[in-house]
């Protein structure tokens, strides 16, 4: 059944529109304003056109941060999706205490403030006071000092990210699994289907919708990551864990270079916009086709 067309529905949407416009459009215009000017002080500024954009697009630091960001987001998806699905498959599906307890424990990392996530991992990974850092450094005998060794800093940020966000994927996949009627499993049992066949032909197709949401949310949020790696490594050593948001804040707040930061912001935002559009289209299709 087609939804009725009625422009008075705008009245219901107006408060949301006004509120988000206030928070998004005014600041965005300020950023655009910065990105085309060279600001010396509040009274001295000159129009520089697209100079900052040209400079930022040719900046190797920006290009490095961008490829680092894509690599990070790709690894996050490659690790968290299979792991999350695997965890969802072993979570208890009948109600009762075990199920409730599992839900609360799995969801717990999602409710921890992001800088506390960073703090938890600092405490865990320091070779002097952290159990994991101590274990790698003393028991395994591998020199472990994540703030100074780039590969270890990378591994630490990735491990933290996987620890923090795999629960989201697991809960989404679990929601999809719970929606599968028992009759499907009974039919599979009568047909003598193997566990793999059940997963491949019943469970995986039924999880398509929720997994698309998981990919969308995980890709976007890992693309915007700031607080957790900032607390853990501060973007270092050198630039080795400087992802896009960390680099942007370095320019905007650290160096107070609002022209370059403005141009960078707009480029960053356009990338996000393009990617969001692709994912949104995918999601719309799933929204109409998932139940088939």
């Amino acid at each position, binding site marked *: 059944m*087609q939804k009725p067309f009625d422009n008075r529905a*705008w009245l219901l949407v107006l408060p949301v529109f006004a509120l*988000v416009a206030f928070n998004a459009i005014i600041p965005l215009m*300020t*950023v655009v304003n910065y990105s085309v000017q060279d600001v010396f002080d509040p009274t001295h500024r000159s129009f520089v056109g697209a100079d900052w954009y040209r400079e930022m697009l040719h900046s190797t630091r920006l290009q490095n941060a961008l490829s680092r960001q894509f690599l990070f987001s790709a690894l996050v998806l490659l690790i968290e999706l299979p792991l999350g699905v695997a965890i969802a498959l072993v979570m208890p599906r009948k109600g009762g205490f075990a199920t409730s307890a599992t839900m609360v424990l799995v969801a*717990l990392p999602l409710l921890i403030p992001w800088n*506390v996530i960073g703090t*938890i991992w600092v405490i865990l990974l320091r070779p002097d006071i952290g159990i994991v850092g101590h274990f790698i450094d003393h028991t395994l005998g591998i020199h472990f000092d994540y703030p100074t060794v780039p590969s270890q800093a990378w591994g630490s940020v990735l491990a933290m990210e996987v620890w923090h966000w795999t629960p989201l994927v697991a809960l989404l996949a679990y929601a999809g699994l719970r929606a599968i009627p028992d009759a499907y499993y009974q039919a599979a049992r009568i047909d003598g289907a193997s566990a793999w066949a059940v997963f491949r032909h019943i469970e995986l197709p039924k999880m398509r919708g929720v997994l698309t949401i998981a990919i969308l949310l995980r890709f976007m949020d890992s693309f*915007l990551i700031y607080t957790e790696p900032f607390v853990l490594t501060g973007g270092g050593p050198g630039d080795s864990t400087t992802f896009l948001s960390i680099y942007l804040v370095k320019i905007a707040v650290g160096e107070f270079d609002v022209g370059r930061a403005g141009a960078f912001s707009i480029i960053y935002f356009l990338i996000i916009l393009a990617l969001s559009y692709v994912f949104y289209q995918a999601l719309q299709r799933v929204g109409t086709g998932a139940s088939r």
Partner: protein
Amino acid sequence: MKARARVAVLVLYLGLLLLPIYWMLNMSLRDNNDIMSQLTLVPVHPTLKNYAEILTDKSWYMGYVNSFAYVSMNTVITLVVALPAAYAFSRYRFLGDKHLFFWLLTNRMAPAAVFLLPVFQLYSALGLIDHYIAVALAHTLFNVPLAVWILEGFMSGVPREIDETARIDGYSLPRFFLTVFIPLIRAGVGVTAFFCFMFSWVELLFARTLTITEAKPIAAVMTRTVSASGLDWGLLAAAGILTIVPGGLVIYFVRNYIAKGFALGRV
């Protein structure tokens, strides 16, 4: 045997999941000199003095009050504006509806780092810096789009015949909405409130930028454990544990809806 293997994998995962949190709990129950002198799996000289210090010092515990104040304001504002909007998206087509929905979603995906400086200037110009309402309003940037998205999913699960029956029975739209429709999707409203709490509670970049002292969130107060004598790890860990407790309680209340909620009402 197969069931036993599943339980073993689950227990292993939960163990790995809880290890970092347990380690912080361990630290929080120890004195800083004790922490620096030896590594022990359980606190040998357990002490509650870190917690006592936080719960008796006003500059510490006011951080929790501040966080709760702006998180609850944000949740109320978000629900009030998002409920009618989600209804409009779920029940009507109107000029530019698809574009508007996409534009809302882009704000959920906008990097906070991009908006940091201009949002600070905007709220400075309005004289709202260091007031709860500034953080509550700033957090609507990502919470309102998410709330509309989740609520629209739950509302679309309610058959449209109910709306039409109510109209024939003589209900006005506001009366139908408040007395019939919202009770029907109360699980969705609860889940949405949970998500607003969650994302407002964990966010720090805006919350720290828009506050100075009076409305400073607990997560930002934590950074002051850095002093001339170095970090007080025990105190830092205790403050961290106390930021996890409210989240754990809130999850407990929504545990039966959490799976559906994370699927944004679209299962």
